[in-house]
């Protein structure tokens, strides 16, 4: 079934994304060879020198010349970044210094031997990860590799040459490379070079030429290298065609699936699948079916390694749980439209297969429907190992203690039966058998499978010996007793097995329920918590409890990661761990224990990732020494994602708040500008008009009038400026109150004096209660408030009407009232008038609209209140209440 001629949109997107990604990254060029000595490093250095001559800034990150003179000659003249020295168990090892290269920021760096494994203590476990980091920093990298180092080729190479390849690279590196140059040499030429001592120093030539450098080997390797390059070119061609929308021979929609187990044999299956999928242009899944069986630490680790391998080769890893492996595999296959399944050849003997009703392979084949099945062979070494892992015998995991208890129970039951048989004549050996069977079942439920089987064995034998005729011998005379004996044994074993399996299932179910509950609890708490601190605390609690770990959360400060962990963290971080956390934050990838980056750290660090950015880092230190199971890791990942989402939500909330605030500021700003521009222009116009008017000949009276206008306009402008300054000081929070003992009556007098310009139109009556206590306030500011109120009263009440200002004491406050006989204010606006720029509809324009707002700000800064009310007789009353905090110390006559 072929799709139509239009280019596959997914493929297009992937190609475009790859293109875009590559532009920001550095350019990676791989010099590929079939074996050591073909001249990869030489070619690289030659090309690099040419680039340098062209003006490119080239440095050497790490080049291994193997003391070959011609290569060394080429190094001469290129800048070499000194290697980093690491101490390990008494020896000094040298590795490439990534930080130095990053600091140096060259255009191009040469890094030899991409597949190299770094010494312990290096930042990354493998050199190709160092290279990835350099590329991400935008530095171009040239490197060399032999074909034997690629994962998918590793076992083929081993088969051909007999030499196990230790250092491997994931195939995805090839996809990352922008350029792959094959350094090809015919096997004969290479052998000649070897003989001439141009490859290895003379001592090693003999062994090399007879082991690795045999013609057959070299030819095979050469073919592999050529094939690899050809495949890559083919792929590039596909990409190119995808981008140019050239309809090519698109492959059909195949999808492969490989069944992965904890056996080392799975590695080969995975690699095989990858190669197949690559050739078929098909996506592939690696599936692990988790059953209720307990697993040992080593099998868990092997499984994790297998799954990691699948991931690194580009497969999608899926973990499903189920009782029946076949059923689970096929169900998933149908869900995901898998067209081909890869499984291993059956390893059990026929008898085992028969007992189980057929091997897994048989089951799968039989029920596969229209899905193709590939059955792949393992090799002997892995077969042997895996056999041990899959035998149905009970694992010898239960501690000795449990066996002792089981045997004790059986012995007790047997002893009891002995007594009963001897004392109760009609109690026969059949009843005894059944009681012993019951005991075995109980042991299976409460103690474990191993002890149950052991006690089944013991009880059967003791039953035979002690109870079946003839007693106290192992001989059984009656045929039916023989059958009974063997049946008993079989039933005991199977029943024991079954009950213990049920128990395990029940445990698994309970575990799943716990996990689900934990996840639900976390989701619930994070959804309902009001505060990020609460959320983080809840998450840390949960994670700590469920996984038995110590947790640290680090949040960003601006663009950087904070140096100290969040308060809810339970783990302390030392400096080294902090730098690991920082690395994780910057690169968005996990690091630390159980990862490939900085694996010697004691804790593991995960980036808290959201689609937009990294919102923090979580560090986890395991209290137990064993690694988490695949399941637990998946759960942990879910938790971490949840935490990341919550943090992102908080950050977005903050951002929204700030945006709202900014918008409000802008609104005020606009209003202010509008209000002020009018207020400013009026007196300025007046001044300009009057001043220019004075140039003309005018009468003395007119001159006086114009001059008065200029002066009063100047005063008005001055008041406006003072208003604005007060406002800005209040808003910016830079207001400083200088409290000092003041007489309120005095402040009132000064304020009235200041507004005497409006005293022409209004009579101002001052009432001061005698004996008012002194109050600690800022004289100037309170005076300002009173001036504001008086000015308002003057402005808004008709000329000729009186204004009254009074000061009195009420309980522990001083009360100052300003009353006018103006029109008053509608009750609904009584509070609104204190807002900035509020203008009563219908009032004459004039004034900035800030006076009352400033007054309120100043009064409240003193801890007082200011309110407005309508007088029953008509007009406004403003009341200021200032708290009396303490009494002034008494005064004394001077000593004269």
């Amino acid at each position, binding site marked *: 079934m072929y799709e139509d001629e239009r280019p596959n949109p997914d493929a297009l997107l992937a190609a475009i994304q790859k293109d875009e990604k590559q532009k920001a990254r550095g350019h990676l060029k791989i010099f590929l060879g079939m074996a050591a000595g073909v001249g990869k490093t030489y070619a690289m250095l030659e090309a690099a020198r040419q680039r340098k001559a062209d003006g490119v800034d080239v440095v050497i990150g790490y080049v291994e010349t193997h003391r070959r003179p011609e290569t060394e000659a080429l190094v001469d003249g290129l800048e070499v970044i000194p290697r980093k020295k690491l101490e390990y168990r008494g020896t000094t090892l040298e590795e490439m210094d990534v930080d130095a290269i990053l600091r140096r920021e060259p255009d191009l760096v040469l890094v030899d031997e991409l597949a190299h494994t770094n010494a312990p203590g290096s930042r990354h476990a493998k050199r190709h990860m160092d290279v990835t980091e350099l590329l991400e920093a935008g530095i171009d990298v040239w490197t060399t590799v032999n074909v034997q180092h690629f994962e998918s080729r590793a076992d083929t190479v081993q088969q051909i040459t007999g030499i196990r390849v230790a250092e491997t690279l994931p195939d995805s590196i090839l996809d990352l490379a922008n350029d792959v140059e094959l350094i090809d040499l015919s096997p004969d030429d290479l052998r000649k070079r070897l003989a001439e001592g141009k490859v290895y120093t003379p001592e090693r030539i003999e062994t090399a030429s007879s082991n690795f450098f045999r013609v057959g080997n070299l030819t095979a390797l050469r073919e592999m290298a050529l094939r690899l390059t050809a495949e890559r070119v083919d792929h590039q061609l596909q990409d190119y065609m995808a981008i140019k929308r050239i309809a090519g021979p698109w492959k059909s929609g195949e999808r492969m699936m490989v069944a992965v187990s904890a056996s080392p044999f799975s590695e080969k299956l995975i690699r095989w699948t990858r190669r197949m999928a690559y050739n078929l242009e098909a996506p592939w899944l690696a599936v692990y079916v988790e059953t209720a069986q307990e697993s040992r630490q080593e099998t868990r680790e092997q499984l994790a390694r297998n799954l990691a391998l699948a991931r690194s080769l580009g497969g999608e890893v899926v973990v499903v749980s189920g009782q029946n492996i076949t059923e689970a595999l096929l169900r998933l296959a149908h869900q995901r439209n898998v067209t081909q399944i890869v499984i291993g050849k059956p390893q059990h003997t026929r008898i085992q297969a028969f007992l189980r009703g057929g091997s897994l392979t048989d089951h799968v084949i039989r029920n596969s429907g229209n899905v193709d099945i590939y059955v792949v062979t393992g090799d002997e070494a892995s077969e042997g190992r895996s056999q041990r892992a899959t035998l149905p015998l009970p694992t010898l995991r239960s501690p000795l203690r449990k066996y002792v208890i089981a045997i004790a129970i059986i012995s007790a039951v047997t002893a009891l039966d002995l007594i009963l048989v001897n004392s109760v004549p009609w109690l026969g050996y059949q009843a005894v058998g059944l009681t012993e069977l019951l005991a075995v079942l109980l042991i299976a439920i409460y103690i474990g499978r191993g002890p149950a089987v052991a006690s089944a064995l013991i009880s059967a034998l003791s039953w035979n010996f002690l109870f079946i005729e003839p007693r106290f011998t192992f001989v059984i005379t009656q045929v039916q007793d023989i059958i009974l004996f063997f049946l008993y044994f079989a039933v005991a074993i199977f029943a024991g097995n079954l009950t213990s399996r049920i128990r395990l299932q029940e445990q698994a179910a309970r575990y799943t329920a716990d996990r689900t509950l934990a996840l639900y609890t976390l989701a619930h708490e994070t959804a309902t918590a009001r505060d990020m601190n609460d959320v983080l605390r809840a998450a840390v609690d949960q994670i700590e409890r469920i996984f038995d770990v110590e947790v640290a959360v680090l949040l960003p400060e601006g663009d950087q990661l904070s140096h100290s962990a969040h308060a809810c963290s339970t783990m302390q971080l030392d400096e080294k761990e902090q730098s690991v956390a920082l690395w994780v934050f910057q690169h968005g990838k996990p690091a630390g224990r159980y990862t490939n980056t900085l694996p010697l750290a004691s804790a593991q660090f995960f980036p808290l990732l959201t689609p937009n950015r990294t919102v923090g880092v979580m560090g986890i230190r395991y209290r137990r020494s064993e690694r988490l199971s695949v399941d637990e890791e998946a759960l942990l990942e879910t938790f971490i994602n949840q935490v990341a989402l919550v943090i992102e939500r908080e950050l977005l909330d903050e951002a929204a708040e700030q945006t709202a605030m900014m918008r409000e500021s802008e609104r005020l700003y606009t209003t202010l500008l509008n209000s002020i521009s009018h207020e400013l222009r009026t007196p300025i116009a007046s001044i300009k008009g009057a001043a220019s008017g004075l140039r003309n000949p005018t009468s003395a009276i007119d001159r006086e009038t114009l001059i008065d206008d200029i002066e009063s306009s100047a005063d008005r402008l001055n008041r406006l400026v*003072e208003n604005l300054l007060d406002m800005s000081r209040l808003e910016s929070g830079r207001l400083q109150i200088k409290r000092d003992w003041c007489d309120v009556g005095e402040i009132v*007098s000064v304020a009235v004096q200041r507004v005497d310009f409006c005293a022409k139109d209004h009579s101002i009556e001052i009432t*001061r209660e005698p004996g008012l206590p*002194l109050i600690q306030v800022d004289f100037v500011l309170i005076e300002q408030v009173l001036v504001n109120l008086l000015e308002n009263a003057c402005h808004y009440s008709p000329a000729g009407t009186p204004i009254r200002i009074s000061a009195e004491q009420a309980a522990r406050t001083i009360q100052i009232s300003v009353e006018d006989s103006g029109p008053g204010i509608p009750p609904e606006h009584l509070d609104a008038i204190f807002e900035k720029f509020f203008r009563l509809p219908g009032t004459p324009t004039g004034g900035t609209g800030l006076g009352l707002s400033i007054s309120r700000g100043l009064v409240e800064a003193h801890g007082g209140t200011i309110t407005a009310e309508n007088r029953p007789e008509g007009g406004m009353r403003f009341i200021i209440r200032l708290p009396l905090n303490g009494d002034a110390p008494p005064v004394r*006559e*001077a000593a004269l």
Partner: protein
Amino acid sequence: MTENGLRVLIIDDELQIRRFLRISLQSSGYHLDEAVNGSEGLSKAAQLRPDVVILDMGLPDVDGLDVLRQLREWTQVPVIILSVRDDDHDKVSALDAGADDYLTKPFSTEELLARIRVAVRHSLRGEETQVFRAGDLQVDLTRRLVTLKGEPVRLTPTEYALLRLMIQHVGKVLTHRQILRAVWGREYENETHYLRVYFAQLRQKLETDPARPALFITEPGIGYRLRTQS
């Protein structure tokens, strides 16, 4: 009243301020010198020996307070400082450091001329005032007699000391600290509440309308001034 031949030195960097000062003062008969910055001001003060110095506190090159202090190192010439509204603290510092009076920008020419007259009068005065008269109030300092509308007024010794201090500096502003030190002593220089109480008492006894004082003027944030009639 015109003062003839008195020299005024203006130290201000603003051209327009200097201009209107020049015009106003010259029309009142003063002789004017100008300096645009602190150092020029100091050298001209030394050279020209003015009778009054008007010093702007907002000079660009140096703190007005420093100029004042340097002046006071060798001359007691009256200094009137020009400042802006919010600078209470600086005004008080300047007055405590020896400035005679202050003006807040924007100010009118009348105010300036009044201040200059007061400052000059105090600097020229040979003998002490003997009798002070203002409206209905008469104070005979030689006989320690205070009368309002002819009727004697009883003042406590402290109130009298305060009154006498203000009379001795009539027309000039005195800072809280200066008043407290002079009447009560150094230890009391921060006890502002004394002044509130005592001035209230003086106003109560001596002012026609204590709520609208005509004599004892509060200079908010700075101190007090006994208003002169002229």
